[in-house]
């Protein structure tokens, strides 16, 4: 619905004629500097988190190995037991894992046409 012009009175005309105030001179440059002209960060947020977590885990493991006697042997034992329990030593499990990884890689290589992407995005 647009403005009703039939009930325009003096106030409406005054309002319509009121000019907008000019923004400060440097505002456009400031907005552009904060958006499109801003340099890309070297790392994305999730990359920084991932590297941080990996470093923390590595430091934790190093500290365990350095302070607890025979820690490395116990860690290896624990890992081997976990592999036994999960069935990763079975040829069939490994085969299915390989099929799953191949399928995931193949799907990641598929390209979707732009028109279909747009339709999916609208939905």
């Amino acid at each position, binding site marked *: 619905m647009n403005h009703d012009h039939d009930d325009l009175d003096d106030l409406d005309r005054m309002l319509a004629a009121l000019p907008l105030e000019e*923004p400060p001179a440097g505002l456009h440059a400031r907005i552009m500097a904060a958006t*499109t002209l801003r340099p890309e960060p070297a790392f994305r947020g999730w990359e920084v988190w991932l590297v941080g977590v990996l470093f923390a885990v590595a430091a934790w493991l190093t500290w365990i190995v350095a302070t607890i006697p025979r820690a490395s042997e116990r860690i290896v034992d624990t890992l081997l037991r976990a592999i036994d329990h999960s069935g990763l030593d079975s040829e069939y499990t490994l085969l299915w894992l390989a099929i799953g990884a191949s399928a995931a890689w193949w799907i990641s290589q598929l390209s979707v046409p732009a028109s279909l992407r747009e339709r999916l995005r609208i939905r």
Partner: protein
Amino acid sequence: MGLALAVELPPVEAPVVDDQALIIATLAGQTDAFGELVRRYERAVYNLALRTLHDRTEAEDATQEAFLKAYRALNSFRPGAKFSTWIFTICYRGCCDRLAKRKRLSGDELPDRADPSAGPEALAERNDEARRLRAAIDALPEKYRTVVTLYHLQGKQYEEIASVLNLPLGTVKTHLFRAKEQLRKALSV
């Protein structure tokens, strides 16, 4: 013999690109396209922030923040929607957050902050129509001032105002009616 013809051609105007095309171009990495969007709406967004916040410095910051948020969320902009409504909504929400922060910091409900540029001399100069009208709009309660700003100063439609302010259509019409009544009284129109 040379024949000199002085033909005055009309100036060639560049075709006006719509907002949707500018958004697509921005997403494709064309920085100029976003610059054009900013150019189109910075004045309106700044005026909305200024009328809502009553503070030029804060209005400038709120305008920059609104465009920054829009730029970061441009991927999520729904095709077919109006960019103006979207950017006004972002700006208005940012202004509401700033007003809420002001109230929190003061510990009490404060009247709207006075415009620092409106000193005694500036107020004395408000004798012409536009200045009187601006002063009257500034004196309105915030909810009325924003509706008047969106409706009259930026040519918005009722539905868009309702969308920006997240208010029912009827409330927008009521606010506008009451705001105009107060303005009429203040201006004796």
